[in-house]
């Protein structure tokens, strides 16, 4: 029953903590990552205790469920209410829309199915005459899978409600927002396996902020943070691959071609941030027949995202920790979530509530 890898080695972790303590400047440092899996790993392994005292690491807009705007949830509900089968990832069913969550829509009689992939949704479509719509959320990790299904002879009763987003563009926007004060980015390992390093450089070069791609094992993460602190000490700010075991510098070209073939960049809404140019995908005209928005006449309305007292918008932009929100753990818990960051299992609030965030000495 031995653990297969030594990427949790406590002695090496301690050594890295010592190195970070030497590298870190005396002033407060805020590092932001943009990936629910990173937050999960950091919190589940209790990695914050290895960071120097004035170095903090926060989750920005890294949970695909959390950043999906109300308008897209509303569109999904509207489609489900026509009688179509709406397929979605599990977490999405509980995110509040303007009127209903998908879970509530299901209680009202809508046919909403939880799937694990676009391919599973397409298979459902092959077995029925009814309309089947895949609610396509997620970053560059899930986008190629949606593309692959649409390229692979998708059935005519199948369509996609596309809500895919691009991470590097959001990272750049965050740096321009007032009050974010970000000193470095821990870039997500699995998104980077697809993208490679170039998109980060393109989007973020002008900011001169350290960007280091990190893996997901405890030592991967500590190593990447060490590299960020080294760049900070040296006054540098460039894109660095701290996860060469998993990420090729050029990325996964085949997956990039899939995305390029099916999708084109467009301005999309991010919950908590607003509209960001070129930060999401829409289907190219050649694939318009699979566009659920066209098939079901969905208007581009903006939903109501204001939740009184909820600081999800600040959490998603790394301007607050979950513990800074007055509702956190009081009115807002995973069992009765108020804001989206408590709904998504990869949301910062949900993770902090379940595993303790910074709380445990």
């Amino acid at each position, binding site marked *: *029953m031995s653990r*297969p890898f030594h990427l*949790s080695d406590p002695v090496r972790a301690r050594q890295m903590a010592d190195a970070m303590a030497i590298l870190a400047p005396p002033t407060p440092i805020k590092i932001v990552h943009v990936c629910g*899996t990173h937050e999960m790993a950091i919190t589940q*392994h209790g990695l914050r205790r290895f960071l120097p005292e004035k170095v903090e690491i926060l989750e920005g807009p890294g949970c695909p469920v959390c950043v999906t705007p109300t308008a897209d949830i509303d569109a999904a509900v509207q489609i489900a209410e026509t009688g179509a089968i709406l397929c979605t990832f599990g*977490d999405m069913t509980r995110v509040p829309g303007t009127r209903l969550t998908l879970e509530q829509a299901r209680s009202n009689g809508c046919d909403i199915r939880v799937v694990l992939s676009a391919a599973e949704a397409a298979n459902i479509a092959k077995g029925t005459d009814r309309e089947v719509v895949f609610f396509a959320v997620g970053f560059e990790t899930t986008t190629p899978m949606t593309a692959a299904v649409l390229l692979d002879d998708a059935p005519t009763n199948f369509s996609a409600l596309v809500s895919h987003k691009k991470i590097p563009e959001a990272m750049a926007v965050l740096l321009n927002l007032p009050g974010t004060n970000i000193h470095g980015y821990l870039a997500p390992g699995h998104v980077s396996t697809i993208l490679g390093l170039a998109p980060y450089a393109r989007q973020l070069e002008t900011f001169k902020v350290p960007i280091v791609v990190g893996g997901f094992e405890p030592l991967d993460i500590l190593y990447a943070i060490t590299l960020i602190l080294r760049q900070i000490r040296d006054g540098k700010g460039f894109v660095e691959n701290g996860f060469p075991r998993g990420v090729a510098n050029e990325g996964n070209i085949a997956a990039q071609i899939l995305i390029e073939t099916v999708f084109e960049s467009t301005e999309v809404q991010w919950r908590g941030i607003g509209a960001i140019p070129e930060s999401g995908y829409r289907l190219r005209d050649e694939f318009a027949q699979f566009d659920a928005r066209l098939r079901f006449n969905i208007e581009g309305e903006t939903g109501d995202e204001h939740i009184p007292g909820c600081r999800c918008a600040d959490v998603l932009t790394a301007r607050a920790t979950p513990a800074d929100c007055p509702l956190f753990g009081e009115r807002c818990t995973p069992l009765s979530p108020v804001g989206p960051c408590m709904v998504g299992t*990869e949301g910062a609030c949900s993770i902090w509530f379940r*595993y303790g965030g910074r709380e445990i000495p």
Partner: protein
Amino acid sequence: MTHYDDRISPLHGAGGEMMGKLLAEHVLPHFASSQVGRINLSAMDDGATIALPTVGELVMTTDSHVVKPIFFPGGDIGKLAAAGTLNDLAVMGARPLALSLAVIIEENFRMIDVDRIVKSFAETLETSDTPLICGDTKVMGRGEIDGIAINTTGLGIADPAIGDAGAKPGDMVITTGSMGDHGMALMASRQEFHLETELVSDVASIWPMIRTILPLGGIHAMKDPTRGGLAAALNEMAGKSQTTIELVHSSIPIRDEVQALSDLLGISPLEVANEGKAILIVDPGVATSMLETLREHPLGRNAAIIGHVGTQYPGRVVVTTDVGGRRFLDMPLGDPVPRIC
């Protein structure tokens, strides 16, 4: 062969001749030796009797079982139903006296599947020398129930009964074996994941193992970590005793294949069900001898001390992680969902 011989029909639940035939041919033969009191299963009376024990406390428990798939690697709903109730008695420190078996079956359910389920139910009772003394059969129409549901009630005798609220600071926490086997085996066998693994459920009656440690004494609290897994069991134990349970993650036995699947799906092996394990909170003075005794039993070979009871965060469970960090292990919310990316 008529249709009635190989499929369940509404007549099988109607209380008439068809039902008598079902019981006589498919149920009773498996329980020929089921006798405990003056009026037993074979009497087919309105109830059965048990002679009252002279010492100890009677423990009664009931559980309804639905599982998908009905036949899974390492077991089926019959074995699960028997073990589930026997284990609820065992972790109360109770020797099982008798079980009931109430079955609701969907019309058109295959008779050979009924046979398999009843057989494995009977075999599991046999491992714990426990008689079946009464039962009930109902049939519902197609689509009104998903295959089969089983309810079992168990009666046991404990002297005294062991609750799950008795943890005291300084106590040691013991698991009788590896965590997450049942939940992960079921997850792997769900067809939507398209996985092929060697994983099997740990479903088993743990009474034969538990009976070997009861004479040692010193068990302050005991629980079977079924739904919600170790996380749910320990949170309940910490909550009821208002203590802190401090775990060391590297000492929790987890099979490599369970860990691998867990990493793949993003579901913690500590949050999924076990059906053949117990968690014990014991006096530190007996911890070592208890561990040795457990390990002598085939079901307890991988038993381990996984932590201790403290006071820092009353009602919560804290884990020291492999890398040396600390975090809470919280009560799981509901059915675990695989992550998006």
